[in-house]
């Protein structure tokens, strides 16, 4: 059972544009939603994370929007740059830890065209 569904699978955005990646979750016990960025041959790097008590969190060019009633959250990358080209994963967990760890989406391969 895939508990976190991520879309699109791949995305091409022009330099300076806005990249938007969406995720939907099923488990209402999830209370921590991070986004990770992964470059080829590297481990995932934590970008930004949100808890369901806020609807939006912004850090630099990266913004998470969260819709608790719809069980959806999204990553917006403003002024996208070629260096942002990477694979992005959304994830979800119960922050108390335990049986399920972080549940990841399948990833979005983002290409920023110069």
């Amino acid at each position: 059972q895939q508990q976190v569904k991520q879309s699109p699978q791949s995305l091409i955005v022009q330099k300076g544009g806005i990249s938007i990646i969406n995720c939907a979750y099923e488990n209402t016990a999830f209370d921590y939603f991070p986004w990770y960025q992964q470059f080829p041959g590297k481990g995932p790097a934590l970008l930004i994370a949100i808890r369901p008590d806020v609807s939006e969190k912004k850090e630099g060019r990266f913004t998470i929007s969260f819709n608790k009633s719809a069980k959806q959250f999204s990553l917006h990358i403003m002024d996208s740059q070629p260096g942002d080209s990477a694979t992005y994963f959304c994830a979800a967990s119960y922050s108390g830890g335990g049986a399920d760890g972080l549940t990841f989406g399948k990833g979005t391969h983002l290409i920023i065209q110069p």
Partner: protein
Amino acid sequence: DAGVTQSPTHLIKTRGQQVTLRCSPISGHKSVSWYQQVLGQGPQFIFQYYEKEERGRGNFPDRFSARQFPNYSSELNVNALLLGDSALYLCASSWGRRLTEAFFGQGTRLTVV
């Protein structure tokens, strides 16, 4: 400060063999989690260890085992390797038992032939 370090970086094993992967967490972090990432997929949770005790286990067979040492480093063992075990094995560390602020190492690429 050093991040999460994993060794070895690459490994080739034959079907049926056993393998041990190692992870050193960020200094001060007491929790280590292991994930398997198959090419083109997101990481899948295998184990979490906190204060040397197993705190969580994903849907993996008993061929997979792990332990955490008093210095909070960890080993992942996989017995009776199958071709399907070929993947990037990732270790993540966090300060407490909670899974927030989990930082990943660059992984061990295991190839089973």
